[in-house]
């Protein structure tokens, strides 16, 4: 397909083009509420085409490869009205081939069914009310990018994923517990999800009452990933928002933007992490980049377009599927750990809450740093002990205001969730509202 398309582009005299070809095959095994529900086999092959004619971009895509001429004609028609661009597609570059992202060992369907059944058995033993739903995936992908400057590179990758959720109608209310694991190689310890869920279910069986007020709050990594701090930082660092001037981090490189202790890294080179890749969706080589160092802004997350607008170098952060336009986003986002253990954080807390899940993350003024969420799963801590589940409770605040020097701590433990690595966040004091 790609070769035929190149021929068609040459025939039509298109001088600047980029072809993004993608192949994906995934076979999910799905359990629904304690029952094996479905086995699926999905495959996608598609091509996205971008051309630049007289400084204007034509963007189109298809999964029907029979008529490359039609695709080129459509791109040409769009380019007449298209976006004006200052960037050019990248030149041929040295692409590293030592990243570990491909392990086609596979995950036999029978093994996945067995694992799902084991998880159901183990959690049902903890609570007979719990209904376990799970998706166990094995995916193979291939990406190839060819552009008019002779860039022609491809990589193959695999992804092994486990999502498991337990839902129970308990006396303390509806309860969701869940875990999520992902890796480019077979999961080393998929059973660890069971232990996590089991512990959360145990704590959730008792209700704790308390009064609204200011108090310390621990936000667990999975809760933080439900639209809280990583989301706020991603929006702020996103080159598109920076170029539009709507990010509060616009024009502040070198400045202190958040409390000391917060170091954020984007790293596309970590072996076996889900979004590790040698080049981004526009063919720009990827790497490891410090974005925030000890609270000081060091750089943004950029694609070709946002980099050209800001007069900066692209950072290898373009993401896309064949049918969407490239946009800047993190590869693997790491919030580096702190010094204290989670145990110690809990033990030292006199009166506060620990939050494992939230409802409504990402709906507030995320760019500004705001959040205001219901505590989906959280526990009251009294004198260093978890005493029970909190309900009808909201936490709210602004991360840029809350996370100042000395107002928070990060745990030394990290949780790696798909393409994020995040510690526990201890906030010394914040607003908690409850119906009590």
């Amino acid at each position, binding site marked *: 397909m790609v070769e035929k398309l190149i021929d068609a582009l040459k025939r039509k005299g298109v001088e600047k083009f980029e072809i993004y070809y993608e192949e994906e095959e995934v076979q999910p095994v799905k359990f*629904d*509420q304690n*029952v*094996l*529900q*479905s*086995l*699926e*086999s*999905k*495959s*996608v092959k*598609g091509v996205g085409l971008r051309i630049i004619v007289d400084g204007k971009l*034509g*963007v*189109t*895509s*298809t*999964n*029907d490869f029979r008529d490359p001429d039609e695709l080129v004609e459509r791109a040409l028609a*769009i380019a007449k*009205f*298209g*976006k004006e661009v200052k960037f050019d597609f990248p030149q041929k570059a040295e692409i590293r081939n030592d990243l570990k992202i491909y392990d086609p060992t596979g995950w036999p*369907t029978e093994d996945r069914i067995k694992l799902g059944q084991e998880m159901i058995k183990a959690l049902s033993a903890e609570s007979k*009310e719990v*209904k376990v739903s799970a998706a166990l995936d094995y995916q193979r992908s291939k990406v190839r990018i060819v552009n008019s400057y002779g860039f022609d590179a491809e990589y193959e990758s695999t992804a092994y994923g486990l999502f498991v959720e337990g*839902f129970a*109608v308990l006396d303390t209310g*509806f309860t969701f517990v869940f875990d999520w694991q992902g890796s480019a190689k077979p999961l080393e310890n998929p059973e660890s999800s069971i232990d996590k869920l089991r512990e959360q279910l145990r704590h959730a069986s008792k209700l704790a009452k308390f009064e*609204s007020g200011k108090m310390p709050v621990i936000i667990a990594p999975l809760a933080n990933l439900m639209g809280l701090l990583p989301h706020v930082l991603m929006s702020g660092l996103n080159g*598109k928002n920076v170029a*539009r*001037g*709507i990010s*509060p981090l616009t024009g502040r490189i070198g400045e202190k933007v958040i409390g000391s202790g917060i170091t954020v890294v984007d790293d596309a080179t970590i072996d076996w992490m889900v979004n590790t890749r040698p080049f981004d969706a526009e063919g720009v080589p990827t790497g490891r980049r410090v974005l925030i160092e000890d609270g000081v802004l060091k750089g943004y997350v950029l694609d070709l377009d946002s980099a050209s607008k800001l007069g900066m170098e692209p950072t290898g952060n373009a993401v896309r599927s064949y*049918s969407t*336009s490239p946009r800047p986003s993190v590869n693997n986002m790491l919030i580096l750990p702190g010094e204290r253990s989670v145990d110690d954080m809990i033990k030292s807390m006199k009166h506060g809450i620990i939050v494992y*899940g939230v*409802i*409504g*993350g990402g*709906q*507030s*003024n995320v*760019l*500004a740093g*705001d959040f*205001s*969420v*219901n505590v*989906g799963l959280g526990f009251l801590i009294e004198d260093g002990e978890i005493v029970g589940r909190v*309900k*009808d409770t*909201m*936490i*709210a605040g602004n991360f*840029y205001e809350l996370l100042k020097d000395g107002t928070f701590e990060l745990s030394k433990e990290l949780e790696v969730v798909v393409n994020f690595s995040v510690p526990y966040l201890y906030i010394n004091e914040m*607003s908690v*509202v409850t119906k009590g």
Partner: protein
Amino acid sequence: MEDILKKALENADVEYADIRFEEVKTTDVVYLGRELDNVSIKVRRGGGVRAFHKGGFGFATFTFPEEAAEAVIKASKLAKLASTGADEHFAPVKPVVAKVKIDVPQDSRKVPLEQKVDIARHYNDILLAGGDKIQSTRTIYRDEFIGHIFASTEGSYIEEERLHTGIMFSATAKDGTNVQNAFDSFGDQRGFDTVLGHEAEAEQVVKDVLDLLKAEKVDAGVYTVVLDPKIAGVFIHEAFGHLSEADHIYRNEKLREIMKIGQRFAEDFFSAVDDGSIKGERGYYAYDDDGVPSQKTYLIKDGILNSHLHSRYTAYLMGEEPTGNSRAIYYNYSPIVRMSVTYIEPRDATFEELIDIPKGLYVVGALGGQTELEMFTFSSAKAYLIENGKITKMVRDVILSGNVFETLKNIDRIGNDLKLFGGLGGCGKGGQSPLPVSDGSPHIRVKNVVIGGK
């Protein structure tokens, strides 16, 4: 095509199988600030085969019609592998043979691309004219045509065309570190006319975003709130609609008990409906992805739980009737139970009567909503204080949260001004987002709502 798909289905050696084949063409125009950010046309086609056998589902995708037979064989094999041997079936329905064509005054597919760029720029220009404080804008025009075919081993063969057209415009204003956002959107299946004539709403967005810059954050607490039709629509969709979806309920004895038909959920004057048969609405479709006609279903009637939302499979498991709510976002996903056009029925209260309270909040528009069945959270676009029956000053960052069962019982008045909303977004569930849905309501008043804030 009909022959190819029907012949392919002959390879199904399972209890039931169906094929959905779709051609999808999407046109996008995006303005960001002064710049035309994206013009693109995406095309894809393909099919998905779903096979069902004794409690097990198999699903396989394909790209070209001639590959359908192979996918039927694959899906059937997977269904048997997934089968638990359970005595589970699809609720019986009459096979349907039908053709549903697009019938709109102005077919968006026939409108030149240039005109679509122009209309997006037109609204974007209105936003940009809002002055120095307008930091950026975002205007999206989108149309999407879906040529949809459904064929089943029971003899159904349905061809249905769907055409969604919509516009969304948002403005971001900045004053120092204070960044605010306001937006509006219009989207449905009434063709290109849907995106015309929204100049006043664009001007309102400018006014709102500038007002929000000056508004104070709401004080956290427990309030009596009057919800406008938009956020009340989000409430009924998020908070109660999802709970009505039978796939959440059918395997959970405790939830079946809670969601038992005949239980009281609200006062007598409260009724909520899901109705995918309202032509032209964003959440409209003639037939669902089980081949069942869309229909009007009372979720709550006069305060009493009246029905769940069903696919044929969940209807069988619960011994109830299919409601035409089995939907997949595209051909490469298997259908699950989804809402369509969900709304609260109007009653007689005027707006003045609703706000006739000593103290409260008038909450307008919705930025989003999320639910974990019992608990919900949604964020409003803007809000005003109500003091002694009058709307007074604007406040921002009003996020409502609560328990759906308590909140439904706390609804104490319902207005007379039902409005339905579509837009460009939709509903997310099971990794399928955004599925086109509409929701709506008249103005309603609710007591005892928790508002997060400063």
